[in-house]
């Protein structure tokens, strides 16, 4: 049986940013997020305390009954990384559209022109995708793409390798070749708080090896990238993610998106999804 959307963990704030109680939305319901001394808390509209977890620099909550622990990212725990609290961006789109865009590389030359991609280097070579039944996650591996400036610490163009991991329906992790440390992966995440089915708060977070850039530089680099993504996300029709084939036309470059949609359907996560063609 598929679990209810209420039984997943969702990000609701940056630990470093939570202070006075503030009202927000989660899955269309009012919640309040706050901190009393060093104790972080979340309450629902009736004032009932919801379970919380502090992880990856964010506060997480679950409005239903959490069925398991929030996922972990062991790679992010290795010493020497800069943990970057990017902050949040509100986007008028389905939370699922936001995740799907994060899993997509084919848009780099057109949306992140001269930063993450550039014409004529537009080809997306075949990569591997699988739905891992044991962990209930979607993975894309051996994804390779030419990038003119792969990261703040990258000089000139390189072919970058990536792995994408969908760790929960609204959270994805990107592992990316790390220019200063061959053999290690930089970790960039996208945690999405579904405000409602067509509006979300997106919390990117990063664990990078980068000794040259300041925190402010790394934050503004990622914010620039995400602003470019937002101009796309707020202009897709329909706003919700179509899960049934027929409405959109995927190609081989979209294997991750195809697997993500298939997986959402399989686990019955349809909040923010459009099930019948409009």
């Amino acid at each position, binding site marked *: 049986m598929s679990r209810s959307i209420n039984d997943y963990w969702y990000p609701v704030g940056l630990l470093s940013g939570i202070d006075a109680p503030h009202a927000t939305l989660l899955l269309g319901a009012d919640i309040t997020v706050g901190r009393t001394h060093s104790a972080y808390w979340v309450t629902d509209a009736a004032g009932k305390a919801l379970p919380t977890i502090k992880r990856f620099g964010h506060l997480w909550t679950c409005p239903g009954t959490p069925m398991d622990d929030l996922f972990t990212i062991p790679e992010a725990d290795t010493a020497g990384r800069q943990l970057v609290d990017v902050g949040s961006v509100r986007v008028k789109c389905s939370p699922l559209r936001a995740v799907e865009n994060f899993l*997509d590389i*084919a*848009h780099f*030359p*057109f*949306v992140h022109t001269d930063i993450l991609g550039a*014409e004529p280097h*537009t*080809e*997306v070579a075949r990569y591997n995708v699988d739905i891992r039944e044991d962990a209930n996650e979607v993975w894309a591996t051996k994804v390779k793409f030419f990038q003119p400036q792969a990261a703040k610490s990258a000089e000139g163009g390189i072919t970058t390798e990536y792995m994408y991991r969908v760790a929960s329906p609204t959270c994805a992790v990107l592992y990316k070749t790390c220019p200063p440390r061959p053999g290690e992966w930089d970790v960039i995440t996208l945690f999405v708080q579904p405000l409602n089915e067509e509006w979300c708060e997106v919390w990117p977070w990063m664990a990078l090896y980068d000794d040259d850039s300041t925190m402010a530089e790394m934050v503004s680099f990622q914010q620039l990238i995400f602003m470019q993504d937002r*101009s*796309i996300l707020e*202009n*897709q*029709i*329909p706003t919700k993610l*179509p899960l049934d084939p027929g*409405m*959109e*036309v*995927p*190609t*081989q*470059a*979209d294997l991750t*998106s195809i697997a993500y949609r298939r997986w959402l359907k399989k686990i019955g996560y349809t909040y923010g999804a459009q099930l019948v063609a409009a």
Partner: protein
Amino acid sequence: MDWVAVGLCEDVPARTVVPRRVQNTDLAIWCSTAGVFHAWGDRCPHRGMRLSHGFVRGETLSCIYHGWTYDGDGACVSIPAHPDLTPPKSICAAQYACRVQDGTIWVALQPTQAAVPELGARRAIRSLAVQLSAETLATRLKQPFGPVITLGGAHDIALAVQPSTDTDCLLHAFAAPDQDRKAVSLALEHLRDELEAAA
């Protein structure tokens, strides 16, 4: 309405694309490098991105999201992620009939045999948005509802009415060639304010 005016040619120069709405249908109106106008559904078949955010190269329109490129017939001719692939013929943008007459771009959402409406010996002045349905607008002007409303008067004004949504329309205004553009433009703004204020 068979033909609906969606803009003045001078507002959509070569190599540009703009969004327009006709009866709640979102359109991407674009002009090729050679000056050919097109009216397409504002939605890329790949992943639903608005084509009005795209870019024109030569006689093609490309989507800004992944660069899929469509020729003048709306057929997808290039998928940059797969440069060696010839896109299947089935991938195409929704196309609508589009004509240019009197310096104005006309679109028909349904196939039609009707002729594009005549605007007489007038010249294009400007477009302006009005927060009224096309029906209410005609009623308040005490004119029959239709694609063109002729007001006449000192400036000999004619309005091509683009019903955008159920509550908004865009007016494309024309006047006698000897009339001062600025004066007509001001008169139109006054008229709009009056119409919106009238109960």
